């Protein structure tokens, strides 16, 4: 019980740190703390395999990807965190309060109903949590697993294509590029386009 409160408090603080930090690298590190705390919560919820996947995929891969891109882009100083925008902050605070109060009242007032499954803690402890989960994943949800694989392939090809455009644009920087966005940029650069992020702070 105490563990839950400590972990929940740290998770909320880390989530706030993601939003509030001015430096994006600190936000990424707060995100790492938040992901790790969620892995602990999954352990508390008797979902050991999900906790491992959370650590490997989120805390391992996703945060590293964020930090890597931050290093790639932010090393030149072009990404600066711009200041607070007050009307936007007010609107966001009101929207967040409404969202939280709505969801919170629903959680508080309604009882959890629904059809109960057969995966009781005793059954899971006897048959093995990961084994039961794997059997469920590869029998009942086989089509969904296949579709998830196709989705990952499509995402991989898409990310690769974008990266190749980056390479191609770098090698032919001086010549006329064939990228469609390039023309709009040069058109707007002639009129009044100045990178705001240079001056923002």
């Amino acid at each position, binding site marked *: 019980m105490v563990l*839950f409160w400590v972990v*929940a408090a740290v*998770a*909320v603080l880390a989530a*706030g740190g*993601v*939003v509030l930090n001015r430096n*994006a690298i600190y*936000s*990424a590190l707060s995100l790492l703390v*938040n992901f790790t705390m*969620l892995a602990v*919560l*999954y352990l*508390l*919820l008797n979902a050991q395999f*999900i906790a491992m*996947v959370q650590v490997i*995929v*989120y805390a391992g891969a*996703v945060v590293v*990807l*964020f930090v890597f*891109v931050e290093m790639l882009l932010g090393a030149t100083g*072009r*990404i600066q*965190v*711009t200041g*607070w925008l007050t009307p*936007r902050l007010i609107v*966001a*605070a009101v*929207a*967040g309060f409404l969202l*939280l109060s709505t*969801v*919170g009242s629903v959680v508080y007032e309604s009882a*959890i109903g*629904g059809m*109960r499954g*057969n*995966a*009781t*803690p005793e059954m899971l402890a006897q048959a093995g949590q990961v084994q039961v*989960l794997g059997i469920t*994943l590869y029998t009942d949800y086989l089509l*969904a697993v296949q579709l998830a694989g196709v989705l*990952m392939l*499509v*995402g991989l090809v898409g*990310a690769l294509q*974008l*990266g190749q*455009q*980056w390479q191609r644009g770098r090698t032919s920087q001086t010549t006329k590029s064939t990228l469609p966005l*390039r023309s709009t*940029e040069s058109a707007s650069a002639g009129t009044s386009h100045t*990178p*705001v*992020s240079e001056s923002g702070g």
Partner: protein
Amino acid sequence: MSGVPTAWFLLLGAILFTIGAVGVLVRRNVLIVLMCVELMLNAVNLTFVALGRELNSLTGQVFVFFVIVVAAVEVAVGLAILVELNRLRQTADVDEVSELKG
């Protein structure tokens, strides 16, 4: 260990989701916006797992798998777009990129 009520987990998920949503609305850096989207997805994952435990069902954990798959693909493609955007426009501000605005 199983003494923590499920409603507390649901409430924690709601709080984390709200923080992520407010972050998406407030922040203008694309990188931070993507991080806040990840926060929201994680809050939903927590809700899935908590409800799955409450209902003695593994479907919640199966759904968390698919959410993690989608989140990983989303981050990869989103960050690739961000790198490309930074090359083209030298900015990471979401308000600076408004070509689709009529």
